[in-house]
């Protein structure tokens, strides 16, 4: 039985590499996803993942299917869209979501234009669905570096970030941390999406960030519980997805995200914090 779970990783180096990459991604992206969902910015990361596309496309046109070039391009495009929409939201009447929607649509259209003008459809599939089973040393170092930076960044900015989420007006009234914290957080989101884009592709980059974070709400009440719960769920989804794709011969990226989806549905039904099943059981209210 244990063999079924471990054999693919023992036997094949590419499976071990894929696992290492997914572990790095889970550890960094899931806590970021927790903050995203708590700030009601879940869909913002979806939009942002699209915004990365033109940058990656420019990198692709310039250097071919090269990870560093496409990553750098995606990073530049993502940070530019995050910064622009943040500046517009903070200096005009537009809310963050509206200004982001405007910029990501512009960015996505430009990306599709660039790719279809030059690349073939196979290249497009690579960009959309990633190359998790072909992670080379560079890609692993990139993923590891990103999750290190993410954890360090979250640790450094934890207190002001929580304050910015709970009561932004108060943080603005006591100091200058509000703006920098907001932009630093957006930068972490972009960084993790670019990381996910290398492993899972742009379309699915958001999956490992958000699905475990959303599912974690059914397992923990506060931040100190939500973040570990999200990481554990992301790790479980990664392993399950890799195994399913190995044994069933399915594409790996979608298999991982679908595993996360299964975990989400299971959490929603069975999770001890508001799972649907528990609502069916009668429980008397307390005295006070």
């Amino acid at each position, binding site marked *: 039985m244990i063999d079924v779970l471990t054999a693919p990783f023992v036997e094949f180096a590419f499976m071990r590499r894929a696992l290492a990459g997914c572990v790095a991604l889970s550890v960094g992206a899931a806590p970021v996803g927790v903050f995203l969902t708590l700030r009601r910015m879940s869909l913002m990361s979806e939009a942002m993942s699209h915004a990365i596309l033109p940058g990656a496309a420019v990198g692709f046109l310039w250097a071919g299917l090269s990870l560093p070039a496409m990553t750098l391009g995606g990073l530049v495009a993502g940070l530019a869209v995050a910064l622009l929409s943040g500046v517009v939201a903070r200096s005009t009447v537009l809310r963050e979501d509206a200004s982001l929607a405007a910029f990501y649509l512009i960015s996505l259209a430009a990306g599709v234009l660039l790719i279809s003008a030059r690349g073939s459809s196979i290249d497009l599939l690579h960009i959309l669905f990633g190359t998790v089973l072909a992670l080379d040393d560079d890609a692993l170092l990139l993923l590891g570096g990103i999750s290190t930076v993410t954890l360090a960044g979250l640790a450094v900015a934890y207190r002001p970030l*929580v304050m910015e989420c*709970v*009561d*932004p007006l108060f943080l603005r009234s*006591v100091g*200058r941390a509000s703006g920098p914290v907001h932009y630093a957080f957006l930068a972490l989101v972009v960084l993790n999406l670019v990381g996910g884009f290398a492993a899972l592709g742009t379309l699915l980059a958001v999956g490992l960030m958000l699905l475990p974070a959303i599912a974690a709400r059914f397992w923990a009440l*506060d931040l100190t519980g939500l973040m570990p719960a999200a990481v554990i769920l992301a790790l479980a989804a990664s392993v399950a997805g890799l195994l399913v794709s190995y044994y069933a011969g399915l594409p790996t990226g979608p298999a991982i995200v679908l595993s996360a989806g299964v975990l989400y549905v299971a959490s929603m039904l069975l999770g001890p914090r508001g799972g649907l099943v528990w609502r069916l059981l009668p429980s008397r209210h307390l005295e006070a």
Partner: protein
Amino acid sequence: MSAVSAPGGALVFRGLTLGYARHPAVHHLDGTVPTGSLTAVVGPNGAGKSTLLKGIMGEIAPLEGAVVRPGLARHDIAYLPQAAEIDRAFPIGVFDLVAMGLWRRVGAWRPLKAHRAAVEAALAAVGLTGFERRPIGTLSGGQLRRALFARVLLQDARVILLDEPFAAIDSRTTYELLALVRGWHAEGRTVVAVLHDLDQVARHFPATLLLAREAVAWGPTAEVLTADNLRRARRLCEAWDEEAPVCRAPAAAAHDHGAHGPPDHLSHDHHTHGHAA
């Protein structure tokens, strides 16, 4: 407290005009809130009371004129807004919410442990002992207001701005919180509070600014809250006029406004506006 007795700390308005989309909500306000004063801001709805506090905080930029805060840094002013932008669904406890008031002392990294007793004392002062671990989403409106009061208490600021601090709070708690406000006054802090209950103002606040976009009266409470002044305030506070002409009053620099005290505040009579049109 040494921070409180340091020099400076007054709020000076110089021809201050605040507003939205060029329409003034506070119009050519001149005067000084002296250090250590306890001032109530009263006036009809839409008189610009909350706007004035936002202007002092720098939340909105003046259309004209300025708020001068000699010797006051941003963190020297504590602000309890009318509608806090608090996300009550965020999973955080009352203790952590109130402990945010320690920001100036602990910043992003220093440990909270040394200040635990101070947080508990602040919670006790507003009657929320035992609520430390309750998620903020489970508090009633009045309880949340009290928690925010406790946070202001912890901020230990030299200037405290309160925007309708007692809205949605029962009378007994209001009485206890008013005692806190008077305590701040006794410690030499400058307190400005937007209030609607004129009896409360008359009983507890030595100075009052009656605002109706312009300062109708500003001075000792008994002299400000006259029937005549209140009638004028109601009359002045007219609806937003889409067609309002550009204000031709002399610019802020033309006024003479040093740091005089309240008696100088009716300087408005020397220019007339066309807003009633």
